[in-house]
């Protein structure tokens, strides 16, 4: 499949200049009403062409970081930019157009067909009356087919209802929908948390390929350390809304792991637990 652009693979390729599509956080702070600080002065540059894994105990602020990145959550202070575009004010929609997101629960409309779900990826560029009649232009339909093929779905599955797919297939539909936007950075919030090991591996391989072949930057929050070690170029670990580790997987030692998922972190995590926090040892598979 043709990809319309090639994102610079890393900082070095652009000779020291910040690449156009670098997602950068500067002193981003977010406190939910009455809750602890979900993000505390986060400063971070996420580059295209790299697969960055976000690690952290439940409640450490991973989801909030990703939501701030795509403009679903407004930071209290600090700025989020993609390239030169701020994720706020007049440039917000243009900035958003460079990003796409996939979700733990896939975020598909299960009653609709796979193809319809994927074509919804370009809904913001499609006129209202076309959406009303669900009459997508021919090139969008072709693009959807390409996106679906690229995540390994077959033509016979395009018109099936999304609810008839397996979890792994649903997440691949989610990725195809994200690819419709030709993102420079793809955000993934626990994309494999509800998948079995084989499907998880498959999804991670797809994400890896998107980095390598298309130069998309993938920022993926995970709970499985083993997957992080296997697929990540870079690991960013968070605790209490702060970045406490940032480096290659080889530098992420068992000691660090202890620190990220330590007892203390569990004790201070807030009641809004999406899922129980396993002891650190469980991750060492």
């Amino acid at each position, binding site marked *: 499949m043709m990809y319309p652009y090639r994102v610079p693979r890393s900082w070095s390729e652009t000779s020291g200049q910040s690449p156009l599509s670098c997602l950068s956080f500067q002193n981003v702070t977010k406190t939910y009403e009455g809750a602890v600080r979900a993000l505390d002065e986060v400063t971070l540059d996420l580059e295209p062409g790299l697969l960055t894994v976000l690690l952290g105990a439940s409640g450490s602020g991973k989801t909030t970081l990703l939501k701030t990145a795509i403009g679903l959550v407004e930071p209290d202070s600090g700025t989020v930019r993609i390239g030169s575009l701020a994720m706020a004010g007049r440039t917000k929609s243009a900035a958003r157009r460079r990003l*796409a997101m996939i979700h733990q629960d*896939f*975020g598909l*409309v299960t*009653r609709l067909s796979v193809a319809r779900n994927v074509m*919804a990826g370009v*809904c913001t560029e499609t006129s209202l009356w076309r959406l009303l009649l669900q009459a997508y232009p021919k090139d969008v339909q072709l693009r959807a087919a390409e996106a679906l093929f690229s995540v390994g779905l077959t033509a016979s599955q395009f018109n099936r209802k999304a609810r008839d797919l397996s979890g792994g297939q649903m997440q691949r539909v989610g990725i195809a929908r994200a690819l419709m936007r030709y993102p420079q950075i793809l955000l993934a919030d626990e994309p494999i948390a509800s998948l079995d090991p084989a499907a998880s591996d498959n999804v991670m391989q797809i994400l890896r390929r998107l980095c390598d072949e298309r130069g998309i930057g993938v920022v993926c929050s995970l709970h499985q350390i083993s997957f992080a070690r296997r697929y990540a170029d870079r690991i960013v670990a968070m605790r209490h809304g702060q970045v406490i580790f940032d480096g290659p997987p080889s530098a992420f030692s068992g000691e660090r792991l202890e620190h990220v998922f330590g007892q203390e972190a569990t004790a201070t995590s807030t009641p809004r637990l999406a899922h129980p926090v396993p002891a650190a040892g469980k991750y060492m598979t």
Partner: protein
Amino acid sequence: MKPAFSAKSLAIVILAFALLAVSAKRMELDSLAGEIANLAGSFVGLSETSQIGRSVERVSTEMFPVTISEAKPVSKISNFDPDDLPLFSYLETRNVETNRVNSDTLEIETVMTEEVWLVERFGYLTLLIAKMIETFEIAIWATLMAVAASLMLSVLAAHNFTPHGTVYFMTRSLISFFRAVPEIISALFMVLAFGFGPVAGILALGFHGMGFLGKFYAEEIESADRKPQEALAAMGAGPFRILRLAVWPQALPAFTALSIYILDRNVRMATVVGLVGAGGIGQELKGRYDLFEYDRVGTALILIFITILLLDLAAAQLRKRLV
């Protein structure tokens, strides 16, 4: 071991029975019971006649056989052509008694005259069917009005899509108000405002339907799965796109079921609001009732019964197809 019932629950039961006893006295249920006993007695020959028995007998003898034909003297039909009779009709010569004043004696005398009448065998039935169709039309327009208005109102009345808290409160109040006013009451006012006829019925039923559909559509919108909505919001989609792409497909089956229910209900209620002059078969029925033409009332009742029966079957089929 806990006892099966405590002293407290026993006291509550006794109190409830005491209240029911007082209420039964107020509702004159005791005299009804007496009448029923009397009726039972008359069947086994213990008592001679009962009030209920007499009423039922009177109404049924007057109602049956029901009338399905219509007859008119030919003299009252303008441009009558005996060679071109309507379908299923025949001419009949009837002896008609007329009272008139004898100009000689100045006394009122009864004269028998012969008159030719045109009898249409299914004349009245045809008229009733036309009225029933009118009732259907009232129901359909009222449903369309309720569905169209509710689709808009429900978005404003869904707390996750309302533009503002005040708008939410106002639309919710309006919807509750529409639901609170019974159709028959609003039909009375609509007849005052728009005169007798179908328009009053359509408006009365339409507003009540909005009260029902607005509330339940809004609840469907609120309970639609949030995950796809958030996924679209992350793309920068606004409320209209989210409604169209994520909410509408999820809510459609429920919207359809609710709308079919309202259509079904509107057909039944359209006959009722007809009673106060809002068009359709109800208006015809009430007119005949007031003229003591119970044989025609009977025809109308049977037709309504058959229609509702068919409607129930059709609605069940439609629901099965669409949902």
